[in-house]
């Protein structure tokens, strides 16, 4: 079946349209375009170089945040990275008007609650505020979000900065105007502080106080998302548009179809991926990863940090959910230097890969999402395919 689709790429479009996105498609497939989903439960996705002009394989969405209860005191922010590997909305302060202020979240003594968000490559520091959030046609009321790089809390405490290589508090450092974590959990389980008299100390927030995945706060279509991106040619694409669809099995445009459900570890959100006869049990499917990351010491790495094989490789890895659902997926690894040299304006590549740092992880990143509908169901939320957390495709 996979071979057939590779030979007849047009069939991919037909199949995706016909079965609501359940079809499997070859990552190395030809040039096809999937029509963007339409409906009030969708928001356009764009892949471009981003505000830092350094992004590759990064999907962005536009988000509107308003003062709780207001429909006019709002800010619309574009180039918010869509990340199925995190939970909650975070916006860089400088991406919004300096005169726009959302109400800060405070503890019982009136101290603003501030978060230290830890990514593998750095930390981001800033207060938690409450906002009404609109994405596409969906809205959530009074959701805690993080304002990164707020001038009111300019410098993270040592306890925060000690958890990352750098502080990523500006648009340039962060690589986006913000990040929308629409992964399989509601709360982010991060580090929270209050800073009375300039000195910050960690606190244990209530679940309701934690920055939360806005999707779970929508009135409807709140059990998960589908990231829908078209496929690209092996040379990569200079621009790409797709859709972020809210809800799973709640509307005519978000049914599971024939997609296979792979349940996730309820604590970590991870599953198992087998590659080169080794099982990597801390693996994940992450739109926020700009390449497929895996361990393969036989493939040379170039100075850009990506894999640079002498000729394009066709590989296979098997994804296995906690529910033992299991399927093999083929993917290509091209020479990253050649990709960038031959297509300097390219921003979407299905064959970009890089060495994985962790010996127990295989990370199918955004290349895996190209030409595929990837469902992410939120933990404990009910869907026609059972409760989250799961991914499906």
């Amino acid at each position: 079946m996979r071979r057939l689709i590779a030979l007849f790429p047009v069939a991919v479009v037909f199949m995706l349209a016909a079965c609501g996105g359940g079809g499997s498609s070859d990552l190395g497939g030809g040039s096809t375009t999937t029509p963007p989903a339409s409906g009030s439960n969708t928001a356009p996705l764009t892949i471009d170089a981003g505000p830092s002009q350094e992004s590759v394989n990064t999907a962005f969405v536009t988000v509107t945040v308003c003062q709780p209860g207001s429909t006019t005191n709002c800010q619309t922010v574009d180039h918010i990275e869509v990340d199925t590997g995190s939970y909650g909305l975070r916006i860089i302060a400088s991406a919004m008007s300096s005169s726009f202020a959302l109400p800060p979240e405070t503890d019982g003594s009136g101290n603003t609650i501030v978060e230290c968000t830890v990514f593998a490559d750095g930390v981001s520091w800033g207060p938690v505020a409450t906002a009404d959030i609109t994405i596409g046609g969906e809205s959530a009321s009074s959701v805690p979000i993080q304002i990164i790089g707020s001038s009111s809390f300019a410098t993270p405490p040592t306890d925060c900065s000690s958890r990352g290589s750098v502080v990523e508090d500006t648009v340039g450092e962060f690589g986006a105007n913000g990040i929308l974590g629409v992964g399989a959990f509601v709360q982010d389980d991060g580090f929270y502080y209050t800073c009375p008299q300039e000195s910050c100390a960690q606190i244990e927030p209530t679940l309701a106080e934690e920055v939360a995945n806005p999707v779970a706060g929508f009135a409807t279509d709140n059990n998960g998302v589908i990231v829908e991106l078209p496929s690209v040619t092996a040379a990569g694409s200079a621009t790409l548009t797709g859709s972020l669809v809210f809800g799973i099995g709640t509307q005519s445009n978000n049914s599971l179809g024939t997609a296979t459900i792979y349940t996730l570890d309820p604590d970590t959100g991870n599953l198992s991926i087998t590659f080169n006869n080794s099982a990597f049990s801390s693996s994940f499917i992450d739109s926020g990863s700009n390449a497929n990351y895996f361990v393969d010491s036989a493939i040379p790495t170039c100075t850009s940090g990506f894999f640079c094989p002498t000729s394009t490789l066709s590989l296979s890895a098997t994804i296995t959910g906690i529910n033992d659902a299991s399927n093999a997926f083929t993917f290509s690894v091209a020479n990253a230097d050649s990709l960038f040299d031959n297509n300097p304006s390219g921003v979407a590549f299905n064959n970009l890969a890089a060495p994985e740092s962790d010996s127990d992880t295989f990370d199918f990143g955004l290349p895996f999402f190209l030409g595929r509908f990837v469902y992410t169901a939120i933990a404990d939320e009910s869907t026609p395919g059972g409760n989250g957390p799961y991914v499906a495709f």
Partner: protein
Amino acid sequence: MKFIRSRRWAFGAALLIQVLWVPAFAGLGGNLDSVEADQLKMKGTLRTTVAAAFTVHEIQTPAGTLVREYVAPTGKVFAVVWRGPKMPDLRQTLGTYFQQFTDAPRPLHPNHAHFAITQPNFVLQSSGHMRAYSGRAYDPLLLPQGVAVTDIK
């Protein structure tokens, strides 16, 4: 390292031979006997595993993150590994290498789920996402004889 016996080489360099409970923890590059106070800061339980070519000191923090520290027969920490729902305090975990960590150049196309540094005396690999972080750091120049990089996990 009085626990180490070379005859155990017959069972392989990284073969675990016994588990002890010892209150000691040092950052990368530090000496085992100089930094017992660090363990208090982690507020975690500590387990020591002795292998043929190194000992592993393992701290489980209250947040559920496991920090493993690899100590050479010289008593020097040559590698640290972490895995769990919260990033550990890397200033403490990386010890004297923390400055190299913060001074390292950024990649051409940065990514929030991955970060790596490869320098002659300092290799760091950080990976993962919210609720599931993992990483390791080591000094290639401090690796004891017979220890492979793949033993650090």
